[in-house]
């Protein structure tokens, strides 16, 4: 992998220089702070940089979208976050946003408009698909050729917003063998993290949800479990570890796969 330094532009810096960005990369809390998710963030930036999109981040001006607060039932904390974020986004005149987290994607796309923040919001799988369709992003090299990949639908991308094909399209460009789990697309099983579960102990039961899902994913004998959400990433990585299979089964975000295939 190349280590060419990349200077990631912020909206503030662009504004100071009298410029704007065509697309805002919404990084999200996991993408900003979680070590595993930060790698995905970097992969997304490498791709944005590689295709020459005029993008920027909010940097320290970004704040949690409020999704976990809302799903936990605290509408006050959610709207505090939302209204502050909308203020910042509108100040910079943001039109289009790409998020690498389906929770941020869903909240920005569906719940902000009513509060005064209307933007064109896409998930990174949709942006990648578009870049590939337009020929701006080519997937070179056959490093994934013949590898078995299974894709786990994030609830907030799939069922919540009906995006099933973009991620599969992107992954299929890798020349790999995409195998489906029995519970996929609209019937996909949750990884167990949504609805603020990520931040609490699971309630009493007889199994962890992520173990159930990782078991199903591994049932397809994959080399790689592809994900599109930082929380699914954590949950399934832990699930694979539960079965001590981390040496043979890797969990990757599709942005990482595309970046790797392009040797970025």
């Amino acid at each position, binding site marked *: 992998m190349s280590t060419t330094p990349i200077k990631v532009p912020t909206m503030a810096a662009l504004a100071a220089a009298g410029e704007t960005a065509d697309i805002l990369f919404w990084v999200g809390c996991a993408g900003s*702070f979680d070590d595993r998710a930060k790698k995905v963030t*970097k992969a997304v930036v490498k791709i944005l940089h590689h295709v020459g999109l005029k993008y920027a981040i909010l940097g320290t001006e970004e704040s949690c979208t409020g999704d976990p*607060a809302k799903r*936990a039932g605290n509408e006050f904390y959610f709207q505090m976050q939302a209204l502050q974020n909308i203020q910042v986004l509108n100040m910079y005149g943001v039109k289009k946003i790409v998020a690498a987290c389906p929770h941020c994607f869903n909240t920005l796309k569906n719940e902000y408009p009513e509060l005064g923040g209307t933007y064109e919001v896409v998930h990174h799988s949709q942006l990648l698909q578009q870049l590939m369709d337009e020929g701006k992003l080519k997937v070179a090299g056959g490093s994934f050729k013949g590898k078995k990949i299974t894709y786990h639908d994030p609830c907030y991308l799939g*069922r919540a917003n009906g995006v099933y094909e973009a991620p599969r399209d992107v992954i299929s460009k890798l020349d790999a063998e995409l195998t489906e789990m029995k519970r996929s697309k609209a019937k996909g*099983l949750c990884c167990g993290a949504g609805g603020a579960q990520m931040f609490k102990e*699971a309630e009493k039961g007889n199994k962890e949800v992520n173990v159930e899902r990782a078991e199903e994913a591994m049932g397809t004998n994959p080399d790689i479990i592809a994900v599109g959400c930082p929380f699914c990433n954590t949950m399934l990585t832990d699930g694979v570890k539960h079965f001590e299979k981390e040496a043979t089964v890797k969990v990757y975000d599709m942005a990482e796969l595309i970046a790797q295939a392009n040797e970025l």
Partner: protein
Amino acid sequence: MIGAIIFVVVFISSFAFFTFKILKIRRNILLGQNVNLSGNKGERLKTMLMVAFGQSKMTARPVPFILHFFIYAAFIITQIELIEIVIDGATDHHRSIWHIVEGSFLGSIYTFTINFIEILSVLAFVATILFLSRRNIIRLARFQKPEMKGWPSRDANLILFGEITLVTCIMLMNSSDVALQTMGVFQRTDTLLVSSQLAKLWEGVSMDNLMLMERIGWWGHMLGILGFMVYLPFSKHFHIFLAFPNTYFSNLKPKGQLTNLSAVTAEVKLMLDPNADPYAVPAPDPNAAPVKFGAKDVHDLTWKNLMDAYSCTECGRCTSECPANITGKKLSPRKIMMDTRDRLEVVGKNIDKHGKDHKDGKSLLGDYITEEELWACTSCNACVQACPVNINPLEVIIELRRDLIMEQSKAPSSINTMLNNIQNNGAPWQFSPMDRANWAQEMNT
């Protein structure tokens, strides 16, 4: 003559009782909060035709889809034969429509329809037997969950036995009719495919007995249908009506979108804007009901949530796809809906007995649904996706959570930590907001 009088009395009183119950259920549903779901008529109609009439979401599970479809189709088409049965009953005639249409083109339509009904009835009969065995012999997991113990299981079996009785009666009626036709007692119909075969069983049965059998079949079928109607409002089978309005008023927004509480927006805007003039906001009306956040009891939910509850078929598709339930947690989205309905029934009965303002000291949250259930939900929408009549258990769960958090300040401590972090440092974890873009620095070296 006596028969006709008894019939008319029974018929009218059944309808009166049914209407009375429907109005009660309507009143109960309207105890819910108002939401405006009137727009998008075209899309709503389409959803209703697809999901309720066309059973589109049932196809996800082919075996019960086909079996259910036989019963559904037989039920709808039998209503045509019912017209004649009712006219016969009220006028003391036999096959009054056939008398009119015989020999004409309409006559062949008549024969076709009756034959169609006969064949569907046989298929429905088989389906019913298979449904009974799925519940009681194979004992499919989704019918054995704790919330199905007692009445819900009995209700399901009762209706299935009722269906067997109905089909048996109509076949008994038609086959003895055919046998009597061969004796020259009744006017001949064209060949009825199934009952002409069954009529062979009755060879050697006396004419009097055949007449008796025909009457037993007729009355059995008629009383069965009316009994079914009277029973419906007490049963999950009420879905055969409510499925239509309930799918019509389906949520048309993306499933991931939760409602924004507008009462909160006003307050938050005031908090965020240091220059806002607090007196610019109109003085609160002292008579206005205090703003409540979330739902503690059924009347805090919307009328659509309450209609959902009455529409539930108790099929358990939601529960069998729920990640929490699959992994042994207490949460079952079906139970959430059944509890909502059961609580609403109790609230309705209280109103009938003690008047509108009676409080029984109980509530949906706490006495029916526990915190443990609510906190197990991942908001994954699997239940919403699975429901064949577009019920939304997640909306109820979120409303109850809102009450827990915003009205009662009750949350697992880890959730409180997460919320405090969001408020203090703009992330669910304890990181400094100033470190948010550290990863970008790492990329620049």
